């Protein structure tokens, strides 16, 4: 295949990936604590044979995926009035104990289980400074202070553990709004909590839709370029063939 086709192909593969990332952002526009992602591309230089009339080694630039960047800015705080919905404002994560070890989340929709433990929507216990947090019916509806102190009718129950990491982008998404990492967790310094609210996703529909149109047009432009390259070749073959006759 000739290089124009290959360059076009690399751009088209990249477009497909960008489109998938945008589709995922838009699908999660109502997922609490979701962080939008965007694709980043880089140039991949490939050596090419010199064409006719060209001297020395030539190079062509292909496009390749460099990474998915995660936008860690906060989402809007949405009031739900549910007593165990807790919005996290500022840098930090809740700690959740799962079967596969500790996981981190910003999705603050919690509930109690049959034993009164504070758990996520999937039933994994949310961690306080002293492990699981248990609310007994005698505590009434506990109050969650800005610093994470949970107080029931009979006094302080626990303090929600809020942690932060050196690098947010190195956290690996696990689905179910959970993140995993091998980095050591440090106590969060700048996070405040709000009870009865949830942090919505930080996806900005306008940005996503305009990116989507941009990608679609770029894809079509590359297809048109490939097409005209094809036409050029066909015309050349026709001309060469006709001169021989």
């Amino acid at each position, binding site marked *: 295949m000739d290089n124009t086709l290959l360059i076009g192909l690399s751009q088209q593969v990249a477009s497909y990936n960008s489109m998938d990332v945008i589709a995922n952002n838009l699908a999660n526009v109502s997922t609490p604590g979701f962080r939008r992602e965007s694709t980043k591309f880089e140039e991949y230089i490939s050596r090419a044979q010199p064409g006719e009339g060209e001297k020395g080694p030539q190079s062509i630039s292909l496009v390749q995926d460099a990474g998915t960047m995660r936008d860690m800015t906060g989402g809007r705080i949405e009031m739900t009035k549910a007593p165990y919905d807790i919005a996290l404002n500022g840098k930090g994560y809740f700690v959740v104990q799962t079967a596969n070890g500790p996981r981190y989340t910003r999705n603050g929709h919690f509930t109690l289980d049959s034993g009164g433990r504070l758990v996520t929507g999937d039933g994994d216990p949310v961690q306080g400074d002293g492990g699981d947090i248990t609310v007994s019916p005698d505590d*009434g509806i506990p109050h969650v202070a800005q610093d994470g102190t949970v107080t029931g009718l009979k006094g302080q129950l626990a303090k929600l553990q809020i942690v932060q990491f050196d690098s947010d*982008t190195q956290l690996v998404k696990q689905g179910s709004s959970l993140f995993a990492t091998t980095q050591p967790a440090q106590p969060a310094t700048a996070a405040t909590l709000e009870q009865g609210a949830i942090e919505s996703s930080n996806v900005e529909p306008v940005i996503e839709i305009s990116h989507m149109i941009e990608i679609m047009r770029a894809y079509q432009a590359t297809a048109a370029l490939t097409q005209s390259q094809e036409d050029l070749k066909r015309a050349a073959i026709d001309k060469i063939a006709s001169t021989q006759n």
Partner: protein
Amino acid sequence: MRALSIAATGMQAQQTNVEVIANNLANMNTTGYKQQRAQFQDLLYQNIEQPGSQTSDSGTLLPSGIQLGAGVRTASVYRITTQGDLQSTSNPYDLAIQGEGYFRVTQPDGTDAFTRAGNFALSPSGQIVTDKGYVVAPGIAVPATATSVAINAQGQVQATIPTQSAPQTLGQLELDRFPNDSGLNAQGDNLFLETASSGAPQAGVPGAAGYGTIQQGYLETSNVNPVEEITSLITAQRAYEMNSKVVTAANEMLQTTNTMGSG
């Protein structure tokens, strides 16, 4: 192309969202109804390049890998069990719970169900029953001769009987509470059933620590806030539209692919 199926998960999620909102609005005037809310989570990710993996022997790390998501799913539809407003009805058998707790009623099959809808009445035999005729625990019978019935905040039921000077105590209403009342299974007809996630019911006397009090002559209205619901409805509809735009765009890209090289 994943974008098509990802957008489909998004449209499905928003459809669920609209259905939950529709149910809330339909039950705006249902006694004791609790607002529900759909909650979403992102689906599994495909790790093409793991963030934090080494890029060289000298220990340099990939700052941000390549993770492609697969869309969204409805994680749960949960109930927000805040107190509804109390509405005066002046019917002596309309009871509202102010605070925590549920009335326990016995279903025809003998099992217990729980409700906050206190629009009760008397059965032909004089027992306090729900509007479906199910007996309200612990089964209090009001004598036919009683001229009036008073139920106090602590759930004590007393009747005034013409031949007696002092009111006669008929019984004591009970309330049940749960470790996690949003885990109750909604049964329709304003009834809830105990589940493994709600925990076992704990019976108690109204007004005791951790239990609500009873208001005679009042009903608890639903806690649905129409303004909030309509706003959520608009948001859900727009989100649905955005996801359908992705389907259109992905389709257009595929069409372009199909027509490549056919000129």
